[in-house]
């Protein structure tokens, strides 16, 4: 006779039926699904930082300020916070799934690509907006697939559409396109993701 347990997983006399076994397996696999709470933090952090940078750069440009790009220095503390917080989360994570590793690799590769684009942007006269928006589309939509969260998939589509718009529109529109992209690609899905978890 097989051992069996009650709902609190303590020993009982009742044997577990095959159907109960399958139900238990299904329930535990659902339990192991990735906690999405932490993901929304990064979308909101970078959503606000980039949105503020685009808005400020646009205003400074309209005021004929000579170096509006200086507002992008705002991203330096965001990088530091991101690296520090992700390392801290990695050390204290109570469970690690294969999807966690995929997500980490995806966003780390993305970070390296963005860093490379910014570092060598001078080679193409910093005409980077369209390329950055297209690069943003990939990890955003793939994260949506990993988290099974459609607003992020649509966020990736918004980045892609804004990337196309960025290729077609004049320089004066680039900050507006960037702002629309970051609000629709990071901020809206980020808040929806946070609210989804609050309601679970």
């Amino acid at each position, binding site marked *: 006779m*097989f*051992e*069996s*347990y*009650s*709902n*609190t*997983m*303590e*020993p009982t006399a009742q044997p*577990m039926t*095959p*159907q109960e*076994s*399958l139900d*238990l*397996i299904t329930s*535990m*696999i659902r*339990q*192991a*699904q990735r906690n999405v709470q932490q993901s929304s933090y990064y979308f909101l952090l970078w959503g606000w930082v980039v949105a503020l940078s685009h808005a400020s750069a646009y205003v400074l440009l309209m005021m004929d300020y000579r170096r509006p790009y200086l507002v992008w220095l705002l991203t330096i503390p965001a990088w530091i916070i991101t690296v520090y917080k992700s390392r801290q989360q990695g*050390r*204290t994570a*109570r*469970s*690690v*799934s*294969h999807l*966690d*590793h995929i997500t980490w690799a995806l966003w780390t590769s993305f970070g390296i690509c963005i860093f490379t684009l910014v570092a060598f942007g001078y080679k193409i006269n910093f005409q980077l907006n369209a390329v950055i928006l297209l690069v943003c589309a990939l990890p955003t939509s793939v994260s949506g697939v990993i988290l099974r969260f459609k607003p992020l998939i649509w966020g990736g589509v918004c980045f892609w559409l804004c990337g196309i718009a960025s290729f077609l529109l004049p320089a004066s529109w680039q900050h507006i396109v960037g702002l629309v992209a970051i609000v629709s690609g990071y901020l809206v899905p980020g808040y929806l993701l946070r609210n989804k978890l609050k309601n679970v």
Partner: protein
Amino acid sequence: MFKELDPLLHAQLRLAVMSLLMSLESAEFTFLKEKTSSTAGNLSVQLDKLAEAEYIVLEKTFRGKKPLTTCRITPKGIAAFEQYVNDLKQYLNHNPS
């Protein structure tokens, strides 16, 4: 004739732990305890049984000054779990409810 279900896996808490570990690369003792709603004593006993059968490995380290037990499923554990699920399916296919 149906194969007898693996008695090591056909127990609620051990099956719950194995199901969780099948979906994860590693999990801490406190995570498993929370997800299975089990007591620390019972979970500890069942984890030892799974480790003795080499279905899982237990890594005992420290986080700061606190002891930390991390569990991982082994290839032998994965094979046993897959066999258990196949045996269950076979049983359910021949005994539909």
